[in-house]
């Protein structure tokens, strides 16, 4: 049954791809389904856990988006997942307490989950250049599984914000597109690990030992914060090329700077290079 399903999916995918490459010259295809995979790099220094700067790549990562892009507006709903393998640069070896056997410290894992919705309205156009202005509902949860040699500890950050967003588009003569987008939160709901990482409230909130209820309770325990306490700047630059009437490929560079002040400062920088395949319909 499993093999049959896999073969069916493979065949279906192939047919879909052939159809997409075929000569279907529909002029108006404002909708797109987008699948992105990328090279993602993160630097993070979170004083709640360590004074050291952690860095690493997210090899397992994927983002899916639905986009509606027409003359007057852009809608995009996006869900993404990244798993970072993080280290502070030094391999850590130590001797176990009981029998003095040599042990190696594991690398830390950081998980990013994002769920965003963007709505932009065209406010300016001149020849092939246009500017869109609007808002982005940015929802990002980060889970940190720190490995400090003999110790492990868990931490989290949730940032939920409604961000003013702007996008500059340039329509190239051959139908290719260039765009630059920026969004910054003014007010955000921020949930983070407590000052001493494991306090009674935290222990109680995860006492169901079920992922989703725990996550919901941890995220609900946040605070509304403004620009002087939270900075989460996201800049994207992309080049999109149509490889057929229905398919486009996009190279997207994304820079994200995040600063959180409370309860102890945290800074992170993410540099991502995505390759996005879009199916337009």
């Amino acid at each position: 049954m499993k093999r049959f399903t896999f073969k069916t999916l493979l065949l279906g995918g192939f047919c879909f791809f052939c159809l997409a490459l075929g000569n279907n010259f529909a002029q108006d295809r404002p909708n797109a389904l987008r699948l992105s995979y990328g090279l993602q790099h993160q630097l993070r220094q979170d004083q709640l856990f360590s004074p050291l700067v952690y860095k690493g790549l997210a090899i397992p990562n994927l983002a899916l988006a639905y986009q509606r892009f027409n003359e007057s507006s852009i809608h995009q709903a996006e869900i993404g997942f990244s798993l970072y393998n993080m280290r502070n640069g030094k391999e850590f070896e130590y001797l176990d307490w009981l029998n003095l056997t040599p042990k190696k410290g594991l690398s830390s894992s950081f998980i990013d989950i994002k769920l965003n919705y963007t709505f932009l309205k065209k406010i300016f156009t001149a020849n092939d250049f246009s500017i869109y202005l609007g808002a982005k509902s940015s929802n990002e949860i980060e889970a940190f599984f720190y490995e400090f040699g003999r110790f492990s500890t868990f931490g989290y950050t949730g940032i939920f914000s409604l961000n003013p967003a702007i996008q500059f588009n340039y329509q190239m003569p051959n139908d290719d597109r260039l765009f630059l987008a920026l969004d910054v939160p003014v007010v955000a709901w921020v949930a983070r690990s407590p000052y001493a990482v494991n306090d009674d409230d935290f222990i109680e909130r995860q006492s169901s030992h079920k992922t989703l209820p725990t996550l919901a309770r941890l995220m609900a325990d946040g605070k509304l914060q403004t620009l002087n306490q939270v900075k989460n700047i996201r800049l994207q630059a992309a080049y999109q090329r149509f490889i057929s009437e229905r398919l486009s490929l996009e190279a997207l560079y994304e820079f994200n700077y995040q600063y959180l002040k409370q309860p102890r400062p945290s800074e992170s920088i993410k540099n991502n290079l995505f390759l996005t395949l879009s199916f337009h319909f």
Partner: protein
Amino acid sequence: MKNLIISLVFIFSLSACEPMFFPPKNQREKDAKAIFDELWQEFNVFYAPFEEREINWSNLYQQYQAQLNENSNEEALYSVLTAMLAKLDDGHVQLNAPRREVFYANRIYREKIDYNLFNRNLIQSKYLKNQFEESAGTEAIEKSFKGLIDNEIVYIHFAKVADEWQWIAELKAQHPQAKGLVLDLRHNVGGDFTYALAAIAHLNTQKRFVFKSRTKNGPNQNDFTDWYNWYVESKGNGFERPIIVLIDRFTISAGERAVMALKTLPNVKLIGVSTNGAISTMMPRQLSNGWNYSIPTQDVLDAEGNVWEGKGIPPQIVLQNTLTDIEQNKDLVLEKAIAEIQKN
């Protein structure tokens, strides 16, 4: 090939961000005195039970900081830090430096005093007659196991506080006629005490206040959260027959919280020697030189308002095996537990 080169250049350029956003702190990681100050200051901010352990932290700074200077090497730094931390004698304070054994500030743990007076193989072979079930795990000392003694007493050794505590409810349902329950928490390394509270609810007939704790939440000495009361709920019809809880100096952390909760039940008796006395929740952290350490951040009081931090929870019946007992294939502490159940 071209794409590969572009990718490599991109990755290389990412690392250039680090000094721009996270500037190096004047070779701080190599300065023994700065590392000493960093550790001392973090304990000054986060360590909760100074008072319970009668520690004057400022005096220790004066005493040990003077032993270091800018030229002190790693060995000297390690020696001074461990000497200072040893004064806390706290089982939750550990220092984990590269290529060295994990350092425990608590002398009993550090010197493994009486560690071999508990022998899991002896219990499994002699008292459970090799009829036992073990929890999953890579390290033998972290594997819990359960079985029946003389077909009438339920025995569980919980090596940690984790999801296997659901065994209590399972065994209670499987053996409704059992004469009693032995919960062996000797050498319990701790974990997450909420597993224990959920499990103890199956032995309990009414909601009970079991302990309270408060956590450091700011840099000043008196910056604490409000006291948080912890309760054990009641599930089912409880367990009316005797429950014997075995404890020793290696019963630590969440294992001790479990003991605090269990001793609120009227049919529980503690046998053994006092627990370790490291009850507060701890927080792992790192120093700028990459060494790892842990800090206890809580004050904890039991249901009667007693402080056991630094002292350990005492048993009602004090009893400890000797090495000779173990060599003679006897666990007198367990045998006492069996006798206590049999006399009911």
